[in-house]
C-alpha cells in the first residue's frame, strides 16, 4: 500500500491505496465521485477527463499515487454555490449532448481549452477537444456549446441573451 494525499474538488483526502489503483478508480470507488466516468479503458475516449493541478488529464491513464500532493478538479467540483459553471450552462443551453456519457469529460476538456484560449475559433475548439470522443457523433452542438461558453465567460459578459439554435442530428 502507498499513501496518497490529494485535494479533490476543494476537499483534502489522505488514503492508503494499492499502487496499481488508477486515479479514476480512486475518484469513483473510494471517494464516490461517480460524475467522472470510465469510457473506453484504452486512453482514447477522454470520458474520464479531470484536471490535475489545473491541466486536463485522462484519469484512467494516471495512477492514484501519481496524484500524491496534487489538486484534482472533477466535473462535480465545477459548480460554485449551486451555480453551474458557464461551460455546464452552455452545454445545457445548446444541447451539447446526445446520450450524455462523454459530457463530463467534454466539459472538463472544454474548461481547460478556454482557460488557455478564451476565444477559440471552430477549428481550435475541434483540436482542443481532440482527446474526447462522442460516440453519438454529436460534435456540432458540442462545438457550439464551447463557443457559447466562451462568449459567456468574456469579461463583462452579462447573463445569456440569445443562444445559437441547436442543430438537430448534428454530425
Amino acid at each position: 500500500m502507498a499513501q496518497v494525499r490529494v485535494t479533490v474538488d476543494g476537499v483534502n483526502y489522505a488514503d492508503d491505496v494499492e499502487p496499481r489503483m488508477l486515479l479514476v478508480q480512486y475518484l469513483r470507488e473510494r471517494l464516490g465521485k461517480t460524475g467522472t466516468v470510465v469510457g473506453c479503458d484504452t486512453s482514447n475516449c477522454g470520458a474520464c477527463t479531470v484536471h490535475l493541478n489545473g491541466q486536463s488529464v485522462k484519469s484512467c491513464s494516471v495512477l492514484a499515487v501519481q496524484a500524491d500532493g496534487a489538486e484534482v478538479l472533477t466535473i462535480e467540483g465545477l459548480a460554485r454555490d449551486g451555480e453551474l459553471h458557464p461551460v455546464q450552462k452552455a452545454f445545457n443551453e445548446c444541447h451539447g449532448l446526445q446520450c450524455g456519457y462523454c459530457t463530463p469529460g467534454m466539459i472538463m476538456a472544454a474548461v481547460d481549452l478556454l482557460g488557455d484560449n478564451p476565444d477559440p475559433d471552430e477549428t481550435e475548439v475541434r483540436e482542443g477537444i481532440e482527446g474526447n470522443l462522442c460516440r453519438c457523433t454529436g460534435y456540432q452542438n458540442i462545438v457550439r456549446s464551447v463557443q457559447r461558453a466562451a462568449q459567456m465567460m468574456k469579461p463583462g459578459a452579462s447573463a445569456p441573451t440569445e443562444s445559437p439554435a441547436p442543430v438537430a442530428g448534428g454530425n
Partner: protein
Amino acid sequence: MIPAKFDYVRPSSVDEAVAALRDAGEDAKILAGGQSLLPVLRLRLAAPSTIIDLGGIADLRRIAEDGDRIAIGAMVPHHDVMRDDLVKQHVSLLSQATATVADPQVRHRGTLGGALAHADPAGDLGAVALALDAEFVIAGASGTRTVGASEFFVDYFTTAIGEGEILTQVRFPKYTGWASHYEKFNRTAQAWSMCAVAVALRIDGGSIAEARVGLTNMGTTPIRASGVEAALVGQQANEDSARAAAEHATEGTAAPSDADAAADYREHLARVLTGRAVLAAAG
C-alpha cells in the same frame, strides 16, 4: 481492466532512481508520463514487478540553454516542450512535431524522454531527434554517458538505453533561424502517424544551404532521409526542387504493412509528404 500488482518506488533524484533500478532487478519498469505504459499495464501486456516513477525528480523537468545546445530534461511534458520559448526559437521543428502528438490531455502528461525511450516507430519525436542530431544523456551505475541519435534508435521499441540505465536529458543543437515543418498523415483525431516527415532547412538567399529530413513510421526505427537532404542542398526552395528531392524519400526505408496501410502506400505517402513538408518549411 486494471494493472497487475506491482511495487511502486518514487525516487527524488537520478542517483536514487538508478539505485532503485538496480535493487529491483530486470523485471522493473521506468514510469515517465505513463501515457504509453499505463495503457500497456492496464491491458496486461506487461506486468513488471516494480514501477520506478521518475515524476518526483525535479531536475528532469527543466529546459535550459547550454552553450550551443538546448538541453531538455527527460521528464518535461510535451505541453511544456511545444510552448517553450527556447525550443521555439532554436529547435522549432521539435516544437511543431510535439504539437501534433496525440491530444491535449496526453500532452499534459506524456514526456519527451518517455516518448523517445519508448521508441514506437510511429511516434513523432524520434524522426525529429534523428534529423537534428540530438544527443541522449543516459545515467547508470557508473555515471552518465552520451549517445548520438544515430546510435540511440536500435530497433522496434528498442534503444541504446541499457539495463540499469535511465534517460535523463535530450540535447538538441541550436538551429536558430532555420525553417522547419512536420508533415503528419493520419486519418482520425489523436491517431498515430501512418507516415510523417520532419524537415529543417537553412535557407540562404533563397537557396537551400543545409537540409535535415527525418521519416516517421517508415521502418522499425526513425529514418534519416539522407538522399532527400543531398538532393535539396544547393537548390532553390521551390516546387520543382521539392518534388525532385521527394523522389528520394523511400531510399533506405523498410515501410511496414499493417492494418492502417500497406508498405507501398506508405512509400507513396513518404514522397508526397516530403514534398509538402519542404514547401511548407520554405514558406
